[in-house]
């Protein structure tokens, strides 16, 4: 394995690739630090730029953006109290109060170091576990893939926050959208209504960018967010060094646990950064000796949130490379990039193309190191981005979205798809429908259908779904996940009926 790791490093240790990673990290940091722009948008906007690059170079650039954007959200979360990305939601809980009481440097330094350590731990697990998981994945048949996809869908539904019902509805919309176009087995056109451009289905990138970037900008415009913040406090990272090292050394278990949670959430197909940082924050608070300090500027809170979201990036690469199943929406875009370069991720990737697969892992590790160096040295420069007002920034973001959509097939029709899903995304947001289930229904829908039909064609009986151990394992997990999701609703119903009885 270690010779493959060295081979992977050898693939990326050239001037161009390292430069791409560095530029990607810097761009990701900028994108992630702008409130309203997500990690997925950053990676999706990078995709067209990688068309002319080699497969490793293109993916390395996108990983740089991925890692940078995951960390970039820390800046606005800490200084403005607005999460730069969904992965930095929990960072606002303690990062901003810490900055507000006059310790912005401490909050930022804690976030940067936690992100770095979380990312490296995620990378180590990636190096050690990915090939093992790849060998295990060779035992997967269509029954196992279907059951795993089903579990992935239920995990998302159970983690959609306020309304389970709306989360599930959003997921069904995504599943439906994935079925538009030619059927994979018979070539039957489904729901195209005469539009020949839809024969291949909806292009993933315009749908994704429309749902996230377009709708987010509209929401920002409606809310009057102009990204014109004033960074009031001055800070010096060097002065905070001693305090930060003391914070980290007294929170070592929290750091490791949060990184593990982030990696595990990342491994789960279809889970995302916003889930990882909130879960780890919740666990950190429950395990802390001083939970009452959480929400008031506790360093443990910042450490938990930031280490988890960067560890997630490494974890998300595992199912992407080993199964060809995206760990989250951003890796779904990377999966698209791999396929554009004619590479099919899956269990055989590690054995047939070790240079590429370990090159991707190596670029992830290098990206984390670069993130730490660039952000530590250039933090003040990055905070200048807050001075760009929204009326300057937003039009060009929409233009980039349009270019990104057009570039795929050189069709204006894809920009209309972007527009249409932008409207849909905005309306869904207004109605309180979460977007991640929709995107993941879109990604997982074809996988679920193809494997279900393949399984039934192989064996008309449905028994293999429960007699094959791995498939049964995932079905049980799916049931547990659904139970976990409906438990709060059942408990709430129970409490209400008790109240009615006592009245």
């Amino acid at each position, binding site marked *: 394995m270690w010779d493959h790791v060295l081979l992977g490093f050898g693939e990326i240790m050239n001037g161009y690739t390292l430069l791409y990673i560095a530029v990607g990290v810097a761009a990701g940091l900028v994108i992630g630090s702008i409130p309203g722009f997500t990690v997925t948008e950053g990676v999706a906007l990078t995709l*067209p730029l990688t068309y002319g690059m080699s497969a490793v170079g293109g993916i390395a650039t996108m990983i740089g953006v991925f890692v940078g954007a995951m960390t970039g959200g820390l800046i606005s979360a800490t200084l403005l109290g607005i999460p730069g990305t969904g992965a930095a939601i929990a960072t606002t809980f303690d990062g901003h109060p810490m900055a507000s009481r006059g310790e912005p440097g401490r909050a930022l330094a804690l976030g940067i170091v936690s992100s770095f350590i979380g990312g490296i731990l995620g990378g180590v697990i990636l190096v050690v576990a990915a090939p093992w998981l790849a060998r295990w994945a060779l035992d997967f048949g269509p029954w196992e893939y279907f059951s795993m996809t089903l579990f992935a869908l239920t995990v998302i539904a159970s983690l959609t926050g306020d309304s389970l019902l709306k989360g599930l509805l959003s997921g069904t919309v995504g599943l439906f959208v994935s079925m538009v176009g030619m059927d994979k087995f018979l070539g039957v056109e*489904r729901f195209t209504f005469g539009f020949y451009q839809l024969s291949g289905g909806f292009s993933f990138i315009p749908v994704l960018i429309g749902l996230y970037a377009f709708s987010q900008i509209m929401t920002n415009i409606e809310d009057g967010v102009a990204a014109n913040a004033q960074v009031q406090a001055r800070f010096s990272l060097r002065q905070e060094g001693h305090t930060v090292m003391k914070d980290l050394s007294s929170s070592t278990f929290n750091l490791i646990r949060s990184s593990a949670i982030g990696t595990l959430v990342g491994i789960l197909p279809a889970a995302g950064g916003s889930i990882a940082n909130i879960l780890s924050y919740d666990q950190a608070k429950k395990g802390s000796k001083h939970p009452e300090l959480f929400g008031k500027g506790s360093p443990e809170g910042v450490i938990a949130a930031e280490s988890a979201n960067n560890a997630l990036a490494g974890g998300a690469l595992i199912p992407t490379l080993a199964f060809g199943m995206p760990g989250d929406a951003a890796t779904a875009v990377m999966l698209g990039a791999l396929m554009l370069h004619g590479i099919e991720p899956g269990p055989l990737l590690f054995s047939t193309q070790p240079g590429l697969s370990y090159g991707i892992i190596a670029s992830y590790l290098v990206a984390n190191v670069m993130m730490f160096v660039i952000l530590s040295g250039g933090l003040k420069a990055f905070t200048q981005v807050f001075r760009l007002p929204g009326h300057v920034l937003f039009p060009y973001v929409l233009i980039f979205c349009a270019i990104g959509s057009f570039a795929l097939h050189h069709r204006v029709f894809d*920009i209309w798809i972007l527009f249409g899903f932008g409207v849909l995304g905005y309306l869904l947001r207004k109605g309180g429908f979460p977007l991640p289930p929709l995107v993941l229904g879109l990604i997982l*829908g074809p996988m679920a259908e193809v494997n279900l*039909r393949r399984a039934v*064609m192989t064996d008309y009986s449905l028994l293999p779904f429960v007699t094959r151990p791995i498939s049964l394992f995932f079905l049980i997990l799916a049931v547990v996940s659904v139970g976990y999701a409906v438990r709060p609703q059942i408990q709430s119903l129970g409490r209400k009926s008790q109240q009615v009885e006592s009245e």
Partner: protein
Amino acid sequence: MANIVSGVLFIAFSTFMYLETFSFRKARFDRLGPAFFPRIVLVVMGILGLALLITALRDSVGSSKKQRAGRLPVQVIATFAMFGVYVMILPSLGFVFSTTLFVVGFQQLLKPTRWTRLPFQLLVTVVISYGLNYVFLNFFNVFLPEGFWS
């Protein structure tokens, strides 16, 4: 009110699309067929839509508060309209010209400036749009629409 409308829309949409599935061709060797999975998804969507509608109706009956109509998001509607016009004119007027019009129009919508600054704003936008077109054409092989000028 929004949830009631959403529930009705989901039920109507899923019903319409379910009926559409009867037009799909079948094959003997494929036991499930191309309509199977869509029908499951649409039935689930319809049931969830019904659940949303019932929940929303129950909450609106139980609630004593009157729902205030929200303010119409004029800027959002205008932005969507402008982008729609931008996509319509893009093939005929080309990327540089269309983008310049859109960007300047959008910036004026978000933050109107004095008319004396408009020529400068137009010039900057033209330069940036041309630059973007040049970069994407020469470095990324993306041939953005040139319009009827070419």
